[in-house]
């Protein structure tokens, strides 16, 4: 038996006309864009009419795996949702681990493309090469945990994997997520609202078909060696194996970049209560892995005492501890566990939810919001009782939760009275938990990310604030972003987990062994440049230019008051310099739009005619 990692099939679902078809995978695109991010971006660019309202039936919701997903290639049990984001209006790729991605592959599909809007609330059931649209009436108003359990009962498949929305997605909140395997989220960019806009409660899947590779014996032998040598024994992974992402809390505190009290400072007086030591000594129950992962960074955490006794989650992860912890002035990890359990159940992106909760707390302390707005809650920073009620209020759009449900940018505009000056976002996507005033390259990484402020495209913080380089020197930061964005474009197309420190030669090695395609570091770098030019082209076609690659005003005008970066901000001139250098390195025009040359060099000649700004 021999295959090439791909299933060779794409499932197409037209919810409006209740039509389901299976078509062959576009093999040419698979070769040029691999899978995941790249392949999803190519289909979306081709099929989505520019200017489409992301919440309309015309938007495309697609779910992709990659050629390595389901094989023994370490840390590739993932899927990505590719669409146009209703939160940012940009290209959107949102990833989750767990077990859904590999299950979709085992069910016989490389990807699923969903269009239209169901007449009534429905869910999609996929099993072994077949699919059907089912009535979701009984699932409505149910949280993601209950939805998963009910679908398993209804389908009679004990091990069905479910990606679904909670109340937040049902109510079309633009910071809602898609939750799978209870605690894994395709979190960012409003994936939940896209499901909701299509009357789609869930996609559930069970697969028994397996995945075939070019030569099973030699591949398995190689994969076994790599699991041991390149993952388990790789020193880059030591902290992820012992602690997981919470190890970053103390590192960020020491570097002075831990978002605190709605980005007022980068050091938090309560760090001891939310760092990795707190997690391990107070709430950790055991470790949990995603499919095919030998790291197992997930911390099963359960609250043993106090007001939140019984609350549990897998995590909380660093981003959650930063945005929902220090950024809300929360000093006890038990409260964060409760908050994030609710985010998972309700289907909320914890990065955005933490940001909007902190914004509301800031506005409450400034007197802009009062108890009349908060539904009676005393929403001071650090008030755990009020804080713990926020996910439910945001998801169900109660009181102030109604405006917060659509993200910080829209909320601030509605609230007014200076609230706009307090938000920290790019293109409408709230900042993740690294304050660029103590790691200047992150300002560029956030500004130029293809889905709005994101830490998973480029991560200069590793080399400076967490490393040995000068975190305030703009020199060389553009080059780091270009390099990281090229590499992550490839990594998210296979789809590797962020936490596998896999280099280009090893990615090429896995790719060749699974598919038989002749690959190399340079070959994959070219694929990466192609994908990053493609998503930039998508955004440029939607009208995004330099004016949207922004630095939030506070990062420029409000120096950090304490910690290592005391007195530091991001000088506008430095930001502009990095941005100009960055465009130049990509061979884009002064407005940050791809040029004929950059597209030709990246092997994207065929999209030039589809970009009005190149005419």
């Amino acid at each position, binding site marked *: *038996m021999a295959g090439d990692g791909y299933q060779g099939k794409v499932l197409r679902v037209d919810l409006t006309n209740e039509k389901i078809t299976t078509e062959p995978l576009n093999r040419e695109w698979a070769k040029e864009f691999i899978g995941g991010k790249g392949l999803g971006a190519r289909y979306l660019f081709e099929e989505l009419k520019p200017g489409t309202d992301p919440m309309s039936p015309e938007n495309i919701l697609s779910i992709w795996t990659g050629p390595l997903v389901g094989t023994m290639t370490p840390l590739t049990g993932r899927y990505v949702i590719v669409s146009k984001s209703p939160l940012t209006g940009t290209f959107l790729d949102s990833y989750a681990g767990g*077990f859904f991605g590999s299950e979709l592959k085992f069910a016989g599909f490389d990807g699923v493309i969903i269009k239209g809007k169901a007449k009534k609330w429905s869910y999609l059931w996929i099993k072994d090469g077949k699919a059907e649209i089912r009535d979701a009436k009984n699932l409505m108003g149910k949280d993601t945990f209950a939805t998963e359990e009910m679908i398993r009962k209804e389908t009679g498949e004990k091990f069905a994997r479910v990606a679904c929305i909670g109340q937040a997605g049902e109510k079309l909140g633009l910071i809602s997520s898609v939750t799978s395997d209870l605690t894994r989220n395709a979190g960012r960019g409003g994936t939940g609202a896209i499901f909701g806009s299509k009357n789609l409660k869930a996609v559930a899947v069970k697969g028994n078909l397996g995945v075939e590779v070019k030569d099973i014996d030699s591949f398995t032998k190689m994969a076994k060696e790599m699991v041991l040598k390149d993952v388990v024994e790789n020193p880059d992974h030591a902290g992820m194996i012992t602690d997981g992402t919470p190890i970053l809390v103390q590192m960020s505190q020491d570097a002075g970049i831990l978002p605190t009290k709605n980005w007022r400072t980068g050091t938090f007086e309560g760090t001891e209560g939310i760092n990795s030591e707190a997690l391990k000594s107070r709430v950790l129950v055991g470790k949990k*892995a*995603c499919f095919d992962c*030998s790291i197992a960074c997930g911390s099963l955490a359960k609250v043993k005492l106090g007001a939140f006794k019984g609350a549990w989650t897998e995590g909380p992860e660093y981003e959650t501890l930063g945005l929902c912890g220090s950024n809300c002035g929360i000093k006890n990890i038990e409260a964060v566990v409760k908050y994030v359990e609710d985010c998972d159940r309700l289907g909320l992106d914890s990065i955005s939810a933490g940001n909007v909760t902190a914004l509301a707390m800031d506005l409450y302390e400034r007197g802009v919001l009062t108890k009349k707005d908060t539904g009676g809650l005393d929403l001071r920073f650090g008030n755990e009782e009020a804080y713990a009620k926020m996910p439910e209020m945001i998801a169900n759009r109660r009181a102030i939760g109604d405006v917060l449900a659509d993200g910080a940018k829209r909320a601030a505009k509605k609230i007014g009275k200076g609230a706009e000056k307090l938000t920290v976002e790019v293109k409408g996507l709230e900042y993740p938990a690294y304050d660029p005033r103590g790691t200047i390259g992150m300002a560029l990484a956030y500004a130029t990310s293809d889905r709005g402020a994101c830490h998973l495209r480029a991560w200069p913080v590793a080399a400076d604030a967490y490393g040995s380089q000068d975190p305030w020197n703009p020199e060389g930061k553009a080059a780091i972003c270009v390099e990281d964005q090229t590499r992550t474009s490839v990594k998210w197309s296979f789809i590797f987990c962020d936490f596998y420190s896999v280099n280009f030669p090893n990615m090429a090695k896995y790719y060749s062994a699974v598919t038989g395609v002749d690959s190399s570091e340079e070959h994959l770098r070219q694929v990466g440049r192609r994908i990053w030019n493609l998503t930039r082209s998508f955004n440029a076609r939607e009208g995004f230019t330099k004016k949207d690659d922004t630095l939030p005003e506070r990062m420029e005008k409000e120096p950090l008051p304490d910690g290592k970066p005391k007195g530091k901000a991001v000088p506008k001139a430095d930001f502009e310099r990095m941005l100009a250098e960055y465009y130049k390195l990509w061979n884009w025009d002064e407005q940050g739009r791809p040029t004929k040359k950059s597209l030709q060099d990246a092997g994207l000649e065929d999209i030039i005619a589809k970009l009005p700004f190149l005419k």
Partner: protein
Amino acid sequence: MANGLKADLSKCTGCQLCALVCSATHTGKFNPSESRIEVQDLFPEPGEFKLNFCKQCDEHPCVESCPVEAIKLNEGLGIYYVDKELCTACGACVEACPYNGCWLDPSGSYSIKCDLCGGTPQCVEVCPKKVLKR
């Protein structure tokens, strides 16, 4: 039970690498559904993972239950295995096993259970958390 696999469940993180390598070894593709070891990872809340596999127990009720004597002794390893050719997929062994150690292949054409990969169990070699032992 001296000859079967042993598992220290307190170390298991549910990654399914055991099931992946098992299916590759026995079926030539990656397909946990066809694996001889099943990882139960369904959480209402945090708890231990459960692994289902043949313990090679001393009582071996599966052997006695089989109407066609398809479960045979591998004398070299001291373990019982299913002879695929003889098995009629009647499911008697599945019923008889108190440990959920064997089940029908997804195609429904024969019963499957751990055969220690002929002496070098691949799951033991690959398990990153050293849960499984011979």
